[in-house]
């Protein structure tokens, strides 16, 4: 088996494609974790909702750009509702309880989607056509570059938002010390709610960009959430840059494992990553170690 450069390049592009998808999901995890210490396993469902709502509005007759523009705020509203009615309502529950609540919410959203939409697979047309771009003997779809570009743009916009706006400063304050933030007059509930809405909106954008490649259906959220979580852990759960790095790395590991070892174990890679990170390096690649003073 001659391992040629062209083959390696193809595996690399394949890894970049799925990695960009995981990166977008991981950014959503990071945002909510930073704002509220909650690991939101319903993040995958937001990605599903973005794609499915756009597809079905398209079937209903709306032009697809308009459908996409409507799908994002609708999903953001679902994110806000998740916070308002499930997380905030649980008040001072422990972190584990809140995580289980998000798992329950993801099951609920998936069930609602199954009834509201249908159980089949759907696609969206790619933004820049489907003629592959040839580089060095390998090919990459234009849509993969769109997803990668989208992840980078969202990362930059998020950074600007968190670092340069008053709202963003409030988010940083809340993540540093929630009680102190409340004491200085920050409305933590509203801000965290908006963060949930923002993460849901980012998930929706991810879903719209990714559907032309991976297709969408009411149950794609589950596996995406798990892989996005693995990516976020790998990159460092508190860091948005880490989320992108973790996502791309996870995608590359998967593609290389599929190419050089065996495709049957591809899904195992994400779970092995979670286990390895939690054992050896819980703060991930770019996160800061949490030091608790006893």
């Amino acid at each position, binding site marked *: 088996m*001659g391992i040629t450069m062209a083959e390696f390049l193809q595996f690399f592009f*394949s890894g970049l494609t799925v990695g960009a998808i995981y990166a977008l999901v991981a950014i959503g995890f990071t945002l909510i974790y930073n704002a509220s210490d909650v690991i939101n396993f319903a993040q995958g469902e937001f990605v599903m909702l973005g794609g499915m709502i756009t597809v079905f509005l398209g079937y209903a007759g709306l032009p697809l750009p308009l459908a996409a523009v409507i799908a994002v705020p609708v999903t953001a509203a679902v994110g806000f509702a998740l916070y308002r009615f499930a997380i905030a309502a649980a008040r001072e529950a422990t972190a584990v309880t809140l995580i289980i609540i998000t798992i329950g919410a993801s099951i609920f959203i998936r069930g609602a989607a199954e009834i509201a939409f249908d159980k089949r697979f759907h696609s969206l047309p790619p933004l820049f056509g489907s003629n592959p771009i040839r580089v060095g003997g390998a090919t990459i*779809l234009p849509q993969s570059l769109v997803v990668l570009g989208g992840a980078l743009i969202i990362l930059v916009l998020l950074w600007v938002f968190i670092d340069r706006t008053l709202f963003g400063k409030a988010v940083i304050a809340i993540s540093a010390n929630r009680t102190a933030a409340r004491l200085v007059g920050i409305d933590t509930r509203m801000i965290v709610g908006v963060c949930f809405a923002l993460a849901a909106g980012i998930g929706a954008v991810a879903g719209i960009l990714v559907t032309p490649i991976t*297709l969408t259906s009411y149950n794609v959220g589950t596996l995406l959430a798990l892989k996005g979580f693995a990516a976020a852990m790998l990159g460092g759960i508190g860091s948005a840059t880490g989320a992108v790095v973790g996502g791309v790395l996870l995608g590359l590991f998967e593609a290389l494992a599929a190419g050089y070892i065996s495709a049957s174990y591809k899904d195992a890679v994400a779970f092995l990553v979670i286990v390895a990170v939690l054992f050896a390096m819980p703060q991930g690649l770019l996160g800061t170690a949490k030091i608790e003073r006893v």
Partner: protein
Amino acid sequence: MVKEKRMIGRLPIAALGLGLAAALVAAPAWAQVKIGAVLSASGPASFLGDPEKKTLEIYVADINAKGGINGQKLQLVVYDDGGDANAARTFATRLVEEDKVVAMVGGTTTGTTMAMIPVFEDAQIPFISLAGAIEIIQPVRKWVFKTPHTDRMACEKIFADLKRRNLTTVALISGTDAFGHSMRDQCIAVAPQAGIKIATVENYGPGDSDMTPQLTKIKATAGVQAVINTGFGQGPAIVTRNYRQLDIAYPFYQSHGVASKQFVDLAGAAANGVRLPAAALLVADKLPDSDAQKSVVIAYKKAYEAAAKQAVSTFGGHAYDGLMILTQAAQRAGSFDKARVRDEIERTTGYVGTGGKVNMSPADHLGLDLSAFRMLEIKNGDWTLVSDSGS
């Protein structure tokens, strides 16, 4: 307080009495014959199970409107297993124990069918499966039949087409679902007699969204002249898209697991040029008038497309054949006695359905031969018949 209690105590008894009386009066109306169907209307096999469900509903209603079978109306009990074999088995047990069905037409996928077979064999209820693998009817099981062509037949048909085109070395890429896996094994088993050499085998999970690594390895394997993809659901659609993305020039074959317009829609322009063995139903309008199946497939196509507002797929056709074989057997038996219906199903001869001409026997619980399969090619998003001379 005590007085009120006594008054209230009499009401439920009166209500119960009325209810029982009503039930007794209405009893004859409830004596419907129940036919069970455990289908995968959701999940990865949804584009197989959903047309099957719609077909059964349309035709049971149609049969009832024409007076039923043996003077009795049919009641269809449908459960959706979502493609999960465990769920299917649970629903099968429910059909047998709670709904007390007389027969079952269902089992969308090989995985769900194999899980349900023991339930129906133990209960001695005829089970007509709608799944593809040959292991469903080989070895022959007394109570189990099936209507779709087997995966072995698909391999034989594809190999015959390859030989005609002078192609002898192929690569296989298979889904790890039961059907994809089974057809892969059948192709490997049948290849030597057909004079075909299998150069390499790759696989993918049915929920995977990117198969370019596997296709890259196939592209890099020397001597490959054609590629066969065995599987169903959205996996083959993604494999097909990836195939064109990677610019792989060899002829590409799919299995009859993708014989639905949904595959063509999902794969898009990438589907053009793909060949697959499938039932004549897909090319109903293009069949020559002399073809024995033409009238049956056109009638089914019209009825299905009008009622379901969707293009026909062979999967719905298999459900139609299953229901027709069952009800015709029941008519010949003159009753819904399970053992007699089973015997009549086994005696089905000369039934022309959407899948082909069926001639069952105690040794053959499928009844189709290779001529029932047609080789199709997808051109401009539509099915076309490949003539026997191979073009």
